């Protein structure tokens, strides 16, 4: 009876409880991030150099695209500014997700060396701690580089801009970042089970972003279907970008699908949340 009472109480507290936990999590995330930023800025030169390196490293992808376009005028029917637009949106979305929780792929090694336990004895949500761990400001390098390419492409693509279309650009980057963040989280949750599987996650994050940098017309239909319906990366930039650039969707989906980005992002967050809970529960009952 007492157990039942407690359970009912918990249910009533449910929504408030979730809100409180999210608040707590954000606060803890902020605390840890602030600490890392402060310690990074203590070594200003080192920070500037690594940020610059990150900027250059991520720029290599674009350099490859430029080299390709030194031989051709269109790739898969897309001009350089159009490909640059795809590149900019995809890379910016990944960059934001990477900045926010890019260290999550270290979860497996944390489980292996036992430092996961340390996170579990602190009075703040584990997710916030894992996400903020080793917060690296140098990842702004990727975002800066992507923003530059995106900015350049916006001045060159042939689009009849309306307020709605202008708004669509930041919205797709934001939704894309959330989708990538969800993928990061699912990948991390998977490492509760398979600790050495960090690289699988890279296929979907870095690999996914590379995929989205090129026009969908380049790839086989089945691959495009896969990233639309199974791992819905196509909603990061492909579908809204095709609409913006006035291109036909190779899968011939109805037009309203192009605007589903926010819905897909929300769904992905739900999936990620479930995966994370399952992973953590598995850890707490098996103790790895």
């Amino acid at each position: 009876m007492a157990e039942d009472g407690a359970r009912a109480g918990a249910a009533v507290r449910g929504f408030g409880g979730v809100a409180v936990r999210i608040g707590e999590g954000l606060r803890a995330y902020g605390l840890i991030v602030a600490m890392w930023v402060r310690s990074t800025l203590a070594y200003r030169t080192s920070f500037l150099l690594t940020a610059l390196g990150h900027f250059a490293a991520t720029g290599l992808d674009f350099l490859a695209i430029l080299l390709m376009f030194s031989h051709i005028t269109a790739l898969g029917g897309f001009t350089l500014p159009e490909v640059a637009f795809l590149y900019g949106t995809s890379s910016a979305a990944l960059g934001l997700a990477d900045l926010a929780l890019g260290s999550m792929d270290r979860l497996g090694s944390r489980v292996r060396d036992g430092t996961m336990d340390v996170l579990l004895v602190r009075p703040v949500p584990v997710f916030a701690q894992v996400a903020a761990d080793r917060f690296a400001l140098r990842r702004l390098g990727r975002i800066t580089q992507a923003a530059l390419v995106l900015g350049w492409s916006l001045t060159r693509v042939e689009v009849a801009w309306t307020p709605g279309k202008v708004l669509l650009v930041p919205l797709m980057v934001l939704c894309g970042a959330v989708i990538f963040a969800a993928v990061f989280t699912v990948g991390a949750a998977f490492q509760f089970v398979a600790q050495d599987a960090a690289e699988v996650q890279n296929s979907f994050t870095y690999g996914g972003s590379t995929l989205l940098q090129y026009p969908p017309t380049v790839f086989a239909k089945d691959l495009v279907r896969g990233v639309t319906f199974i791992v819905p990366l196509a909603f990061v930039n492909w579908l809204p970008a095709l609409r913006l650039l006035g291109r036909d969707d190779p899968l011939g989906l109805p037009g309203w699908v192009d605007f589903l980005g926010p819905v897909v992002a929300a769904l992905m967050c739900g999936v990620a949340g479930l995966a994370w809970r399952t992973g953590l529960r598995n850890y707490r009952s098996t103790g790895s």
Partner: protein
Amino acid sequence: MRVGTRDTAPGARRQEEPDGTGRREEHGFIELDGVEKVFHVRRKAGRLRRVREEVRAVDGISFSVPRGAMVGYIGPNGAGKSTTVKMLTGILVPSGGRLRVAGIDPARERTRLARRVGVVFGQRTTLWWDLPLKDSYELVRRMYRVPEAAYRRNLERCVELLDLGPLLPVPVRQLSLGQRMRGDIAAALLHDPEVLYLDEPTIGLDVISKAKVRGFLREVNAERGTTVLLTTHDLTDIEQLCRRVMVIDHGRLVYDGGLDGLHAVGRSERTLVVDLERELPPIEGVPGARTVKVEGPRQWLAFPAAQSAAPVVSAVAERYPLVDLSVREPDIEDVISRMYAGSTAP
């Protein structure tokens, strides 16, 4: 540390935080009743076949620790010590039995309990590896929402007693093991926890660091009434800190009582190692001691752990040309294996 009697500090806090589960603290501060933890592991059997095997890491443990006690929790490697501590902190969910710390079920309310608990894992740090010690503490303060005044008082006390002053600006990864351990212990106490779990707090430390850590723990327990559960391999830790000791082996509690009782039960022995001037036949005629090993000029004499070493030393020194000597404490594995031998003997 909060300087005051043990009634004011933690007692007052208990009033502020009524127990959410509706249960009052019952008999003890830490209560275990038939707690079990079963792991399933896959083991290779043959080339491709794998069998699922059940490992009972903790197999029905019950004990109760009153508030303010300092208890040793010992046992051989893999006996289930760490698993128990992990269940007490809510890291692991028990497979069976009932477990309460301060009236809270750790598995269900892990984060709430975390504010009232301090944990020191001997092997791995709870500090942030790349940050200076000071920054780690600052982060702990904010995470646990420790009031500024209490934080400053606690930190000052820790810095003084554990000699942390020169270490505060040093990144944790550059600290030696002993320094890091002291840093870790301080971090676990900044938020005035009511209970402190220490997992091998003196492992790998030099003699001076060990003494410092032990002195500090004694003081924390006496002054603040912090309940301490100490897991260790070093019997000296137990001897100097705990009046009560629990022994776990193969997931079961095999002894719970005073340390003297443990020695008596185990009939454990200490060893006097003497270096003589030259090779001599085995030493004889020392009351209460017998020579167990001879290697060149070095000889080993065993005597009951409960007995003082002084008469043995003087008896040897009187009749033999003594160059150097040392006393070795019985180690836990040894004590426990003797205990078994004692209990199974007819």
